[in-house]
C-alpha cells in the first residue's frame, strides 16, 4: 500500500492522522509544498492528485493509497523548469515565494478544469460547450490561492502568457 509521489512510491504513514502535506514534507522529504494555514484557507499546500488540484493540508494521507501525487518538485524533469515556472520568473509572479508552489500547481490543475469545461462563478453561459480562459475566469479560478505579498498581477500574467490560447 503506497502513494506515488512524483513517480516514486511512498509508504502510507502509520499514524492515520498524518496529512498528505506532512507526508510530502516530512516523510517524502519534499519541502516544496508549503504549510500556510493548515486549515484549507490559503491554498499554499495545493498539489495535484491524479492531475486534479487539491489541498494537501486537509487531505489525510491514508485516503490516497494508490493515487499519484505531483508536487512542485515533480512538475518538470531533469533539472529543467516547466514553462509556467519560467513564466513566473519572467513575469514577476512571486516575491517571498511561499505561496508560489501552490499557485503553480493550482494553475496547472485549473487549466485542465477549464479545458474540460468545468464552469466557474463568473461563467456567463453555463451551457456553453467550451469556456475561454479570459482574465476574469483566470482570477476567479485562482481565488483559492492567497498571496500576501500581492504578486497577483504577475501571477495572472504568468498564467495568461503560458496558456495563451484563449486569453484576452
Amino acid at each position, binding site marked *: 500500500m503506497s502513494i506515488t509521489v512524483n513517480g516514486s512510491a511512498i509508504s502510507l504513514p502509520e499514524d*492515520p*492522522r498524518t496529512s498528505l502535506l506532512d507526508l510530502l514534507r516530512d516523510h517524502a522529504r519534499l519541502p516544496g509544498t508549503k504549510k500556510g494555514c493548515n486549515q484549507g484557507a490559503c491554498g499554499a499546500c495545493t498539489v495535484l492528485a491524479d492531475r486534479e488540484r487539491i489541498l494537501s493540508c486537509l487531505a489525510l494521507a491514508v*485516503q490516497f493509497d494508490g493515487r499519484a501525487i505531483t508536487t512542485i518538485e515533480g512538475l518538470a524533469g531533469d533539472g529543467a523548469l516547466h514553462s509556467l515556472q519560467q513564466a513566473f520568473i519572467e513575469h514577476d509572479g512571486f516575491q517571498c515565494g511561499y505561496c508560489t508552489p501552490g499557485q503553480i500547481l*493550482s494553475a496547472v490543475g485549473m487549466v485542465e478544469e477549464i479545458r474540460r469545461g468545468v464552469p*466557474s462563478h463568473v461563467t456567463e453561459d453555463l451551457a456553453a460547450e467550451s469556456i475561454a480562459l479570459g482574465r476574469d475566469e483566470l482570477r476567479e*479560478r485562482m481565488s483559492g490561492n492567497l498571496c500576501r505579498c500581492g504578486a497577483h498581477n504577475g501571477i495572472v500574467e504568468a498564467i495568461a502568457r503560458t496558456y495563451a490560447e484563449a486569453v484576452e
Partner: protein
Amino acid sequence: MTPFTYTRATDAAAAIRLAGDDAKYLGGGTNLVDLMRETIERPAKLIDVTGLSRSIEETGTGSLLIGGAARNTAVAEHRAVRTRYPMLSRAIVAGASAQIRNMATVAGNILQRTRCTYFYDDDGARCNKRRPGQGCDAIEGFNRNHAILGASPACVATHPSDMCVALAALDATVRLESAEGARSLALTDLHRLPEDRPDLETVLRPGELITAVELPSLPLASRSTYRKVRDRASYAFALVSVAAAIEIEGGTVKDVRLAFGGVAPKPWRAWKAEGVLRGAPATGASFRAAADAELEDATPLRDNGFKVELARRTVVAVLSDLAGERA
C-alpha cells in the same frame, strides 16, 4: 487531533456495519479533518465512504440521482445539472475554492457544520452546540455573520453551505441507509432548527448514511439562478444568498422556488414567499411583498440587522432578473 482507526468501506452495507458510537463517515475531509484538528470532533474511528456511489444519472422518472460520494466539482460540471438545474451548478461554484470543490463530496457538503467562530473556539468561548448548556457567546458577541431566521436563545449559528440552498429550492430528497433499513427525506426536513438542542443538527439516526440525493424532474428549474452576496468577490461565505426559479405565464407567476443561505441554521426554503408569489403579478411589488412575508419574523442581532434589508433586496433583484429574461 485525537487518535483514530481508519477503514475504507467498499459499499454502503459495509460502511453501516462498520459504524458505531464513536465512528464518523469520512468524505473529502474538507470540513471533518479541520474540525478534528481543532478537536471539536473526536471520532475514534473514521470510515472512508469516498468509494461509494458517485454516479450522476437520469432516472426513468426524469429525476436526477446523484451519489453521495460525488465530488462537488463533478456535480457542478455535469451537463444535466448545468442545463436542467443551473441554480445548483451556480451554487456549487459559488462556494469554497476549486481545490476544496474537487475534494468535497455531496454528502459531506450536506453535513458540514457551522463556521461560527465561537463554535470553533473550544478553549475560549461558550457554545451550546459544542457543549450543551454551556451558553452562547455569539448572541451578545460579534454576530455579523449569524442568523436572522430560525435561530433560538440557545444558538444563532448559520449553515454555511451554498449547494444545500439550491437543493432546498429544488425539492431535493436525500436517500439514507442504516442498520434499520432505507428511507428518504426531503432535504428541507434533514436539518433541525436549534431550538433548545443546537447540538442535534440533523434527524439522522446513529450510523445513518447519506447514499444519494435525488432531484425531481422540475422544468421550471431550467431557468434558475443562485446569487451570493459576500464581503469579497470570491472565496468567502455568504452574508446572504438566494436560489430562485420562476415560471411566468401572461405576466403572472405560475410557479416559483425560492431559498436563502447565510441567514439561518439550515438551508432556508422560503415557503411563505412562494405562497405570496404563486398567482401574483410578476412585478417588483409582488417580489417585495413576498420577501417581506418571509422576513416578517426575522430576529436581527446587534451586528446583523443589515441582513434583513439585504435579503429583501437580493430576492427582488434575483426574481426581477429571472423575470426579465422572459420579457
